[in-house]
């Protein structure tokens, strides 16, 4: 643990929350927007010590803060970050100012409440990625639902009520069993502290059920096929900033959950269930892509493409080799940047045409070259064009898949091809289609340039010079991989046939 003058992670979690209450002192929509932008920039500045102090090449948790919260049950306020969560924290913090900027003229009603939700959301997300106590994690995990629900339900599109309700019910229903699993871990492991639970080895029977309870919650959040149906509805109805947060940060919580909980805490069960998870991941990749291909609503295309892209992430995770894990984490970051960027672009064009249908937005290439330039960049990156960030992640997952089993690798090829197909189809129409309703829309303004340039820089930076990102994540991932390997061997599952074991577990529960 390094010496720091003040609790960095606490400040990152609670600064936006405290600042959110400051909103109530402001009158006037512009003042609210400027204030939130300033807050988000300060939040970025507050994260500088995180960059300065982060020890590369260390697999340990860093910047740890620990104190009692509910002593009687051993619940602690316990924060820390390692190579896995560090990138997610950074992603969350970078996304905040972009969200403020891209809703600048988009949100016209109840502006103050909207920004309150944004700040609340950021606080909860940073909390999720830095919690090292299961209960604290759960608190942030659930707390984030409320602002997201409101973002969709209040500022969303015409079917916002249906979409927000579906989102809320799905995700909360998923995490109902997560709470039970958390309690079970506490009883079996004697602590809620994640690093300490990682040191322990649980029996296979316990891991079997714990894995399923955890995986259900995370699979819904990712979302994996067939638990994905809330996602297109939520994405399409959410306001731009809501879609951006949803795509960039929220979906990552699911895969982060797999990396942080399933793999280290239930390694034997993870290995046991890996074929199933891989099969579902491949199904998500192909299914998501195929459905995206048939959509005319641009937002729906990107929403279904998320199902496909996140399939790559879960696939990488359950390959259990280093390339797969690296690829997965890379794709988490990349998807956050690229899909966030694409959603912001859709928001920008929606403000002009008031339609998200491709056929209402044809032929932008001639009149809005800058817009099309950015679109082209993000679209290329989205299907993994070499030189962009997604290429690095996707190729790693590919390598990992072929290392594991050439057949899995072979299954991915059509997925990648479909991705290129739907992305090119929609880009082609946007750029060179013949416009029918052209109203003389203006090209990007300075504000739009700003919020699109930032992810664009990351697209190139990570695409061309991924070394630094590797350095941040590698040590933690190598440790994770070794842990899974050694700990899954320590528990024998061969002497019990899986069905018998499931039956026995049910009998034990009922007894």
């Amino acid at each position, binding site marked *: 643990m390094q010496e720091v003058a003040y609790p960095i992670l606490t400040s990152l979690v609670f600064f936006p929350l405290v600042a959110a209450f400051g909103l109530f002192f402001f009158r006037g929509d512009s003042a609210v927007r400027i204030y939130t932008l300033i807050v988000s920039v300060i939040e970025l500045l507050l994260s500088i010590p995180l960059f300065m102090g982060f020890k590369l090449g260390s697999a340990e948790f860093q910047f740890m803060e620990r104190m009692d919260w*509910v002593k009687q*049950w051993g619940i602690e306020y316990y924060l820390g970050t390692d190579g896995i969560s560090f990138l997610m924290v950074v992603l969350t913090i970078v996304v905040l100012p972009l969200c403020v900027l891209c809703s600048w003229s988009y949100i016209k009603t109840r502006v103050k409440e909207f920004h309150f939700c944004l700040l609340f959301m950021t606080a909860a997300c940073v909390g999720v990625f830095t919690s090292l106590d299961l209960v604290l994690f759960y*608190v942030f995990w659930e707390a984030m639902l409320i602002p997201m629900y409101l973002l969709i*339900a*209040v500022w969303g599109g015409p079917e916002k009520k249906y979409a927000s309700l579906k989102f809320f*019910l799905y995700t909360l229903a998923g995490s109902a*069993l997560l*709470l039970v699993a958390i*309690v079970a871990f*506490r009883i079996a492991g004697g602590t809620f502290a994640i690093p300490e639970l990682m040191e322990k080895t649980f029996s296979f029977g316990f891991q079997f059920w714990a894995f399923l309870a955890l995986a259900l919650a995370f699979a819904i959040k990712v979302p994996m096929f067939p638990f994905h149906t809330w996602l297109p509805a939520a994405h399409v109805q959410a306001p731009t900033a809501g879609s951006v947060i949803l795509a960039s940060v929220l979906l990552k919580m699911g895969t982060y959950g797999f990396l942080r909980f399933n793999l280290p805490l239930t390694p034997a069960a993870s290995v046991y269930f890996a074929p199933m998870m891989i099969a579902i991941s491949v199904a998500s990749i192909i299914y998501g892509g195929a459905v995206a291909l048939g959509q005319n609503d641009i937002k729906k295309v990107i929403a279904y493409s998320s199902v496909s892209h996140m399939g790559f992430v879960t696939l990488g995770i359950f390959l259990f080799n280093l390339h797969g894990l690296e690829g997965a984490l890379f794709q988490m970051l990349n998807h956050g940047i690229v899909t966030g960027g694409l959603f912001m672009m859709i928001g920008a064009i929606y403000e002009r045409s008031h339609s998200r249908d491709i056929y209402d937005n044809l032929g932008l290439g001639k009149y809005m070259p800058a817009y099309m330039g950015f679109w082209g960049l993000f679209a290329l990156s989205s299907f993994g064009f070499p030189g962009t960030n997604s290429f690095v992640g996707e190729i790693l997952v590919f390598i990992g898949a072929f290392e594991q089993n050439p057949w899995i690798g072979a299954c991915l090829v059509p997925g990648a091809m479909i991705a290129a197909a739907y992305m090119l189809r929609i880009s082609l129409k946007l750029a060179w289609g013949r416009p029918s309703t052209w109203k003389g829309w203006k090209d990007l303004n300075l504000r739009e340039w700003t919020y699109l340039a930032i992810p664009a820089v990351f697209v190139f930076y990570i695409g061309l010079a991924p070394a630094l990102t590797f350095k941040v994540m590698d040590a933690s991932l190598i440790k994770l991989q070794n842990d899974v390997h050694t700990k899954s061997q320590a528990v024998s599952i061969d002497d019990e046939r899986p069905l018998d074991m499931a039956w026995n577990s049910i009998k034990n529960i009922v007894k």
Partner: protein
Amino acid sequence: MTFNPNLILPEIYQFLVIAMLFIQSIGSPKMRTKVGPLLPIAAALGVVVAVVSVGAQGLVFWDSYRVDHLSQFFKAAIAIGFFITVLNATRQPTLDKEKTTDYFLFLALSAWGLMLLSSAVELITMYLALELSSYSLYTLIAVRAKSKDAAEAGIKYILFGAVATALALYGFSYILAGMHTTYLVELVKGDWSFAASPMAVIGMSLFLIGMFYKLALFPFHFWCPDVYEGTSNETAAFVATLPKLGAIVILIRLATMFKPGYDITTMLAVLGALSMTFGNLAALVQTDVKRILGYSSVAHAGYIMIGLVSGTPEGLAAASFYALAYVAMNLTCFWVVSRVSVDGRNLKLKDLDGLHKRAPALAFALAVGAFALVGLPPMAGFMGKLFLFSAGWNHGYNWLIIIAGLNTAISIYYYLGLVRHAYTKDADDESPLPDTSSFSLVGAGLLSVLVLALGLMPSSVFDLALGAGGSLLP
């Protein structure tokens, strides 16, 4: 016997309040209509008295009345609940002016009965205290007798209550016959498995029915939604919260006899599972806000069973904590209901439409209360559920916890419905403006803070609860 009045200060104080109300109620008609700000202040003082005497311990009245951590914890909770309900009821639109003092007299009397109940450690004493609190409520519910619904609710409550207490009394005779004592201290020593003492176990099951009735546990819950619907909002706020505390404290005392694995404990667990499932499913289709809260209370009675059947001090403490949390979050919802329904009518879900515009603070309090009832962090309900689950896991009832987890998922829909109507729908122009006086907003604010504080900083309260639960079990 040396009688030390310091031990029963909260009861004495409450009795003095009752005496004052009684004197007022037999006074001139002019005097009768005036309760004014004095009663809330007196109730607030009652909270202070109850909190001050939290540490008291001892036995009085020939050992039938036990002052310990458990009783004092619950007395403080009852005093707080009484204060809030009195405050809530001071602005009651459907109450006849002339009946004001009588109304508060019975309210105070019922709370007093519940206080006595929390200290009773002997079956007859329990029975008397239970009846004292029940009879006052029978009267209270019928006070709004001008309306047909209220009369029906009153009759339903009395009839059900009479049957339940008759069964309890009948069961009590069996216990006496089987165990030859009415003192809990002695009863605990007996063997409560069905094989060893079938008569006592049957008797205890019957005796428990009286408590289940108060708690609105399935299948003794039938009165609950109808009574809530039929009584005024303010009375419902009382009926929905405080009598539950009384029932829970008795169940906690009795739970010390029921080891996990006993038939009677399994019965409690099964009833708990049925209660939460039935309550939640029934609430899904309701459109009347009070009926929703009624069925939700049936479900919550089921959750509390987890703590009771676990057979550990932590389990009992978790049940105590959850009871307190339940009172706080339910009162928050009822406060909003009472304030929104300025003319005293029963609120439908659509009456909440657009509440965020008409009264943002009330809408926020409603959201806090509803999300707390779901068990969403960082509200009190979450910590309560976490404690219950942690305490119950690995004591033979894991299936109950899984059912509770799944039930939480079901319940989201209707609790979210309250928030959805308040935040995402637009109001009709005809809907009456809610009470947005500072009285209403400050109350809503304080209750929300209480619910949030119990969720964020449960440590010290849980310590008290642990002292209460731990004092019963070795």
